[in-house]
């Protein structure tokens, strides 16, 4: 997995609440057996007309946000299905950080597996970042994971919380499976206990 350390980039505002995984990547694009190539269909039904032409009003189609790397989003972002195609599409588009007042649980976990940093902040602070993002391409934010701090284009600093283990994995681009396999003895002894105590499992 790609490391996430420090990011300076354009932030795009998406204030709509309850943006669900069907909006992020409609199911017609879930038929691939690959992990890559979903970026072009990110937010497909909001981003394109039926004939494939772009909807100019959609934020990521506006010239100033086409290269956005940060998303400032409305509450409950990523609700709905468990499809990891959603963070795959987001990462494939080039977005590496999402800020919202809350995220759906499975989506939140999926982000960390794909080098994306989801940040939860109180409404007032999301409002500050949303206003900054509205300024367009000149408003470049900095997200520093090590320092757990976002800095707006005006130099306003906002601290954020992140789970220590998830931070460690993101900073170092670590593969979860490799880490867990180091604990194979614990899993083996659990399985021995399980066979004795709950043999029907």
């Amino acid at each position, binding site marked *: 997995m790609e490391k996430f350390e420090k990011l300076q980039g354009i932030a795009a505002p998406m*204030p709509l609440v309850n943006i669900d995984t069907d909006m992020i990547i409609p*199911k017609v694009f879930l038929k691939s*057996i690959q992990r890559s190539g979903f970026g072009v269909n990110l937010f497909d039904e909001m981003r394109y007309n039926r004939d494939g032409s772009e909807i100019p009003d959609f934020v990521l189609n506006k010239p100033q946000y086409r290269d956005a790397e940060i998303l400032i989003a409305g509450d409950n972002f990523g609700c709905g299905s468990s499809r990891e195609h959603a963070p795959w599409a987001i990462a494939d588009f080039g977005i590496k950080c999402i800020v919202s007042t809350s995220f759906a*649980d499975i989506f939140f*976990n999926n982000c960390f*597996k794909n080098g994306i940093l989801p940040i939860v902040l109180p409404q007032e602070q999301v409002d500050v970042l949303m206003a900054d993002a509205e300024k367009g391409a000149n408003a470049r934010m900095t997200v520093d994971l090590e320092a757990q701090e976002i800095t707006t284009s005006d130099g306003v600093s906002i601290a954020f919380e992140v*789970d220590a283990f998830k931070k460690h994995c993101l900073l170092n681009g670590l593969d*979860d499976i490799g880490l867990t396999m180091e604990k194979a003895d614990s*899993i083996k002894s659990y399985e021995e206990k399980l066979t004795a105590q709950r043999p029907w*499992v």
Partner: protein
Amino acid sequence: MTAPKTLYDKIWDAHVAHEAEDGTCLLYIDRHLVHEVTSPQAFEGLRMAGRKVHAPDKTIAVPDHNVPTTAGREDPAQMTEESRIQVEALDKNAKEFGVHYYPVSDVRQGIVHIVGPENGWTLPGMTVVCGDSHTATHGAFGSLAHGIGTSEVEHVLATQTLIQKKSLNMKVEITGKLKPGVTAKDITLAVIGETGTGGGTGYVIEYCGEAIRDLSMEGRMTVCNMAIEGGARAGLIAPDETTYEYCKGRAHAPKGAAWEQAVEYWKTLFTDEGAHFDKVVTLRGEDIEPVVTWGTSPEDVLPITGVVPSPEDFEGGKVEAARRSIEYMGLTPGQKLSDIEIDTVFIGSCTNGRIEDMRAVAEVVKGKKIKEGIRAMIVPGSGLVRAQAEEEGLAEIFEAAGFEWRLAGCSMCLAMNPDQLSENERCASTSNRNFEGRQGYKGRTHLVSPAMAAAAALTGKLTDVRELV
């Protein structure tokens, strides 16, 4: 004496294989269910790394999302090229990695969350995961069950564990009795209407109270299925005699002495007196009405006797979301919900594709005809549900009324197979999500119970089922 524990605490504690100092745990997984859409990249990951499936005997695979539901579906021409590739990839992966498998040709094939319980894979006190958010369904057995992403599918395949931190405890109590015409689907939608789609975020819900106890296993599965729509990681219901009765004799349930031993353990699975819940929501069963959704979020719930709201009825970000929903749904604020005309009825899904749902529909439509011009489809949740419905004579009732009686699969719940809505087509659906485009591009979904869907099929509009029975 140890501190009183919730049901969730007990199941969690029984599955921690390793705990780090910061509370990050390796949670052991008893059952891993797999379907064709979220697994190909995970199996490919194993292959690339030269890894095996750690516990193939605890891994159960079945194709469901993509499969056609019409006769002759063994013919690859019925699927799009991409769907066929996904189903074939699952065929191949199941064989190569040696996991339990129900192919399309097997009568036991069906929606993964119906197949698991039906065949006795899902049992009380287990941890159950699947690369599908509606894994919450299995919580009805008092098992800790939730959806995971594909990276986590790969992690479970390789290690039979998940890296997890514990969620908070939430209690949802439904007191008293339900009124006639009110079902498990109305309970679960009413709860989401109360808490919002983000209300359960960070929590595992335990549903309890008399109205929950009174439900069959099928009804309990419907309630837990939509815990995810309330944002919760999982929904749970403590096992009881109803649960044991359902499990007993199922193909993969324990037998003989092992059964006795299992039941003895299951009887310890309840929330202790005085255990702490971080959040409590209580609804009176008597207050719940048959409900419908009017918008594009499952929290957009109102009694069928209500009217379409106005965006100004809401606050904050929901004002814009409601405005967008009402426009998308082609509705007018103030319009009576029971005046909304529909084009299509879809009955099925992991929420409402079980035998009890089929019976509920038959009760409403028996001896009647669906309204002319309405497209109405019933998709049983599994081949076994289909066989039972045929044996009970329900299929004849459906076909006589004018319904299409299909083969098992996810079908129009998410429209990954050919069963889709067209633009602006309006559907009364027993599924779980009314998101934009969920049942087809620009399709319009109203979530309802099976009885309400049946009523809508007869009248051609959203209808209070209590007026028909």
